């Protein structure tokens, strides 16, 4: 039995939450379906850990769906990079679900809760599928599975605020346009190579050489995924979607959805097209680099002026995605390491912060910053979690944010890109401003008249603090994450260089 499970781990990783989703809907009661979802997610997480352990040394697991030969059938392929991303996704889900129980009960009517958890599981299955599959078209299908579930999840915030509906609608339009662009790009690649398997694509593209179709394909994929990962200026869907989605959903999405999209981008850029693809290198440096830098500043500045805490954090996410993209554009191993390690670091940090926002909403009934005066005294643990997460966002030492900044600046300095290094730091100073605005209100401002707020329940506080703890633990001892990210980067780097050698 164990051997059987072990042999099919990659399939189970996706299938488990996928099968669980309809069961969850059939179970019918909020509590029951929540408990069921929790168990399933725990198992999914265990599978991710197992996959991570198996690939940590460098083995690549290749799993053939339906037993078809590799370039013909769909391949699930796990290497260091996506094992790491799988771990992030399922790990975040494992922590968000226990947290969700109370806040979902407060935000969503009881009869809708089973469907909420169904959508949640579907979303997880989709995200895991995006990450694990080695087939370009399969990525699209899973992308849409997760996106459709996400639209529904975001829209379920409408029981609290009707703006969730328009947010979800806008997200849907932009997300679908993005996904369709992606399919067009994949179609172009298929036209050239006649294959959809990512590894096979890489070889055949290298054989085929550059052409205008290939360039079109690259651009379509870049824009398509750019829409999904909220690359500036394609981010317009994100702030409202994050701000009005139910708090648990926001925490989960912030930790995972954009991360999976970034992973797809990494995969296409460096496994399929390769470092040495000149058109890509030019595009990254001429277009993506400036956009990433603008995102770092523009989004942070907008974040400073937000009154809604969740919206503020959403804008901050756009800025952080700017950092991740910036790391890519360096096209060096250190730069890639920075991006990959920031995937993890930002997931942990942002999840914690959005969870804090959820705790505020549950206890204080609002996450409007101007109404959070003195909340540091009423909800000391929650607010302390915010402060710790905020430090990580700023990039202070002993938090994961620092590790990311370290690698990013190091990568910039290695290339001798002075201004970029200084800009990275300057934009993290903007983070000081928007984090500190909240800190000042929470601790130094008197509470509004007649408010009764009590500390968030333990079921929410513990997951929040686990995320905070992770962001501190991996800030103090970043050996595991930085080595994992470094190895994933060097694997991408090595494989990618062989391909384009004439």
């Amino acid at each position, binding site marked *: 039995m164990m051997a059987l499970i072990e042999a099919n781990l990659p399939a189970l990783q996706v299938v488990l939450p996928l099968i669980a989703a309809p069961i969850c809907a059939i179970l019918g009661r909020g509590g029951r379906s929540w408990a069921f979802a929790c168990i399933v997610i725990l198992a999914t997480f265990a599978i991710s850990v197992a996959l991570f352990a198996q690939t940590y040394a460098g083995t690549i697991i290749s799993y053939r769906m339906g037993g078809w030969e590799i370039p013909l059938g769909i391949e699930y392929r796990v290497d260091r990079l996506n094992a790491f991303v799988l771990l992030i996704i399922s790990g975040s889900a494992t922590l968000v679900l226990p947290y969700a129980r109370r806040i979902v009960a407060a935000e969503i009517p009881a009869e809708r809760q089973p469907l909420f958890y169904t959508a949640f599981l579907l979303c997880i299955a989709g995200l895991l599928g995006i990450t694990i599959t080695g087939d370009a078209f399969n990525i699209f299908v899973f992308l849409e599975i997760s996106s459709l579930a996400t639209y529904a999840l975001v829209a379920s915030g409408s029981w609290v605020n*009707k703006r969730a509906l328009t947010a979800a609608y806008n997200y849907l339009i932009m997300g679908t346009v993005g996904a369709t662009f992606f*399919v*067009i790009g994949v179609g172009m690649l*298929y036209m050239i190579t006649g294959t959809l398997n990512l590894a096979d694509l890489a070889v055949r593209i290298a054989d085929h050489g550059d052409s205008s179709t290939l360039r079109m394909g690259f651009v379509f994929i870049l824009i398509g995924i750019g829409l999904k990962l909220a690359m500036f200026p394609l981010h317009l869907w994100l702030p409202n979607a994050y701000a009005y989605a139910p708090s648990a959903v926001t925490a989960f999405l912030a930790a995972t959805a954009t991360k999976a999209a970034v992973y797809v981008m990494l995969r296409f850029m460096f496994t399929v097209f390769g470092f040495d693809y000149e058109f890509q290198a030019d595009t990254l440096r001429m277009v993506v680099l400036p956009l990433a830098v603008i995102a770092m500043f523009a989004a942070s500045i907008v974040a400073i002026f937000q009154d809604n805490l*969740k919206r503020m954090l959403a804008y901050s996410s756009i800025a952080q995605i700017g950092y991740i993209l910036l790391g890519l554009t360096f096209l060096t191993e250190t730069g890639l390491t920075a991006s990959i390690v920031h995937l993890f670091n930002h997931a942990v940090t942002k999840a914690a912060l959005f969870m804090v926002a959820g705790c505020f909403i549950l206890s204080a009934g609002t996450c409007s910053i101007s109404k959070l005066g003195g909340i540091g005294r009423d909800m000391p643990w929650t607010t302390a979690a915010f402060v710790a997460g905020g430090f990580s966002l700023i990039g202070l030492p002993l938090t994961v944010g620092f590790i990311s900044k370290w690698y990013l600046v190091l990568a910039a300095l290695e290339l001798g890109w002075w201004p970029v290094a200084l800009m990275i730091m300057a934009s993290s100073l903007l983070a000081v401003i928007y984090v500190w605005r909240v800190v000042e209100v929470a601790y130094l401002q008197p509470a509004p008249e007649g408010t009764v707020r009590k500390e968030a329940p333990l079921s929410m506080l513990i997951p929040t603090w686990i995320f905070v703890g992770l962001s501190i633990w991996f800030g103090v001892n970043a050996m595991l994450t930085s080595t994992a990210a470094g190895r994933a980067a060097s694997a991408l780097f090595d494989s990618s260089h062989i391909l384009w050698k004439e």
Partner: protein
Amino acid sequence: MSDIGIELDYIMGRYNYWLFCILMMTGLYITVSRGNLIKKIVGLNIFQTAVFMLYISMGKVIGGTAPILTEVPETIYSNPLPHVLILTAIVVGIATTAVALALVVRIRESYGTIEEDEILELEHDMDFGSGAAQGDPVA
């Protein structure tokens, strides 16, 4: 005059791509320019259909028949894979449309309109009208 012939050939020989381009741009334009939420969805559908056509025309092998096994060994078949892919994409598209329409229905129920500018106006009022803070739940 042979130059023109080549040009014409160039254009006519790729008519499926031109069709795809026109459809895609039409769809995208509708999606972006229309204020009516339903029309946006219509545009989105046209846009997606363009992609379906791109794929399907791509799978066509000149002189090939439908990819169903025949008795004749030297039959040329069209490439069936794009069809299969697009079948999936169509399903995804339907699901997306359904979710979008459902959202529009709910928006209409909550806002009383499906015109984007009117909705934006309402949302602007929610933000800045009568001192309501953004973070507040709206009953």
